[in-house]
């Protein structure tokens, strides 16, 4: 945040010859990859932000680290491995699939399947019940008329 001492540092704008602004990185494709990876890494000094979004010094440093690694030709997975070797799984916003996270990744799907199966079973069981268990049917004249 030292660089935010705009009070003294910035004189009024000077025209340097209008031109098409260069992309912030020399290579937009690389930059897109950097941001894509950075969006999955947690900024550890912030409460809950990615290093893509955070302005913290550590976030800026780690983004630079990611950029350099990609420039050296490393793969996305190698970058993630580099970060977890130093900071642990906590730094990944996409939790790895492991024995300890099976419940996490497969839980929702399992719940959906179980829920719908239970629903079908309950409905089937109800359809086999005798009519006395249910309310007496009054005239159905009104039940399907507009009036939800």
């Amino acid at each position, binding site marked *: 945040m030292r660089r935010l001492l705009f009070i003294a540092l910035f004189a*009024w704008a000077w025209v340097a010859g209008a031109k098409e*602004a260069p992309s912030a990185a020399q290579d937009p494709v690389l930059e897109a990859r950097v941001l894509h990876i950075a969006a999955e890494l947690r900024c550890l000094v912030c409460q809950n932000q990615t290093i893509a979004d955070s302005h913290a010094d550590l976030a800026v440093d780690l983004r630079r680290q990611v950029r350099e690694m990609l420039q050296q030709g490393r793969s996305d997975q190698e970058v993630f491995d580099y970060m977890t070797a130093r900071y642990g799984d906590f*730094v990944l916003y996409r939790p790895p699939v492991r024995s300890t996270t099976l419940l996490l990744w497969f839980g929702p799907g399992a*719940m959906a399947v179980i829920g719908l199966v239970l629903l079908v079973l309950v409905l089937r069981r109800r359809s086999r019940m005798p009519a006395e268990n249910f309310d007496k049917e009054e005239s159905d004249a009104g039940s399907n008329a507009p009036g939800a």
Partner: protein
Amino acid sequence: MIPEIGHFSLWLALGVAWVLGILPIAGAARNRADWMALARPCAYTLFFLVTLAFACLMASFIRHDFSVLYVASNSNSALPIEYRIAGVWGGHEGSLLLWVQMLSIWMLAVALFSRHLPQAVLARILAVMGLIAVGFLLFMLLTSNPFDRLFPAPMEGRDLNPLLQDPGMVTHPPMLYMGYVGFSVAFAFALAALIGGNLDATWARWTRPWTTVAWAFLTIGIALGSSWAYYVLGWGGWWFWDPVENASLMPWLLGTALIHSLAVTEKRNSFKSWTVLLAILAFSFSLLGTFLVRSGVLSSVHAFATDPRRGLFILAFLTVVVGSSFALYAWRAPSVGLGARFAVLSKETTLLANNVLLLVAAGAVMLGTLYPLLLDALGMGKLSVGPPYFDAVFLPLMAPAVFLMGIGPLARWKEAQAPDLAQRLRWAAGVAVGCALATGWLAGELHLVATLGLLMSFWIVASVATDLLERVHPAGSPWAQAPARMRQIPRALAGMMLAHVGVAVFCFGVTMVKAYEVESDAKMATGDSTTVRGYTFTFRGTREYSGPNYEALQGRIDVTQGGREVAVLSPEKRIYRVQKNPMTQASIDSGLTRDLYVSLGEPVEGGAWIVRVYVKPFIDWIWGGCMLMALGGLLAVADRRYRRKQATDPVAHAAPLAGTAP
């Protein structure tokens, strides 16, 4: 003096809440009309006392009374008036007071608009709400008193967090809390029904409007929070799956399930114990959210300053309230009847399936939010669960729910025929697919996921259109009669259609933004320009200015399209004088079909800046869709049948629980 009045008022309110929590409910059990009659006056008194306390706190803010610790921590003499008012709920203690204020407003509303309710039922409802008030008032008075004094009083306050000095702060928390707290009404209705044994269609008709209004407020509150994050946080995101955001989404999902479930219970007297369970769950998740946000168990950008002692209190309160409700449910629910019969394929089933999916979605969000805590508590390491997880898990759950949304309204009650439905919906399906593909093609490229999202959105609209068409132009009826038939559509139905269209609009916005948003970071010196999606952004330099309580550096960016000027954007970097945090203020040009979003990044040598430019297509449709949903809900509540004089609505009509003494 004023803070003392406020403080005393809260103690009195606590006393009244105790009386309200005990006597009317005992009176209902023992049939003592005099005790039951205390319910309304107690609710009125409670409202008066809480409002008085709230007014005292607000007055302390407005008057810059820094001898009050809470005011000194959240305000400043240079803080503009609107943020002094909003600052009342800017911190933990004040936001608790806002919670209780909302509760007292809902209790007042219930007390006022309940002429049709039997006395015993009203007594139980207000008593339950009174007990909830007891919990929150005790919490405030014992651990989080907003009226604590500070000696010696400082000359200056520490200022409201600059991120909160925004119009969003004035509207988002009150709307959100109206929603959260509003589910306590459905909760109280549910407990009253379980205790009194009158769980039936009439009960559902009483409960429904209250729940729908609370749900509408919660929808608006969440939408406001999301749009506020979007324009204030400087990087254009609108949902982060942050624990506090999830804490508001879970009650919303359950509330949505609840309003649909209540529709079935009202109409067909079915799903009774399920609806009651949902009503308990919705408010339980509201309370869980309160716990998560204030206890420090989860790390979040939105969390309040934490203290394990406070966390323990809320947890104990949560355990008592929710635990006893579930215990009551376990005791009474098995004797609730099955209601009317319905076939395996019917409108009831589609609604039940929708409920299951919404419940599973809420469960998935809860699983992801609490999993880090789960592993840590079991000593199995530390983990982060973020947007990549939630996006991967949540969207596939919502897709079938949206599919059902297109079918449910057209299905018949009691029994529906699959071939009949397929026949009626075939045009809708075809149109939906066609429009989805056409939109993708017009936007420039087709993605699989984007096409699916668009398909969901068009499917809903096509289904609503089909439904509408069937009603205004049924077989054999001439077009001339259509306007008359249109006017005959009950507001409840119109509300449903509007709300569903709102969901479609929301899906459309989300899909378009995620799939077709463009971001560009450019190093710009004065005079430089960059072109994104046909819009040319030219940097015109910066200037400094002083705000009421901050110093700002403001950039100017001219936007043109095809030579024609479109907008002038002024992104800023601010430093607030008191807390000295730097803040990035984005500048946005909003349009119906796109937002142009610009923010200043870092300065580079030579007076140039890294400027972030986004073109976000249809992003405002996200919040527009939410507003339509809420409007649909409010329209539905305005249905005439809720305002019919209930002349023949005695307790005798209510079906008693099988097996209990009449």
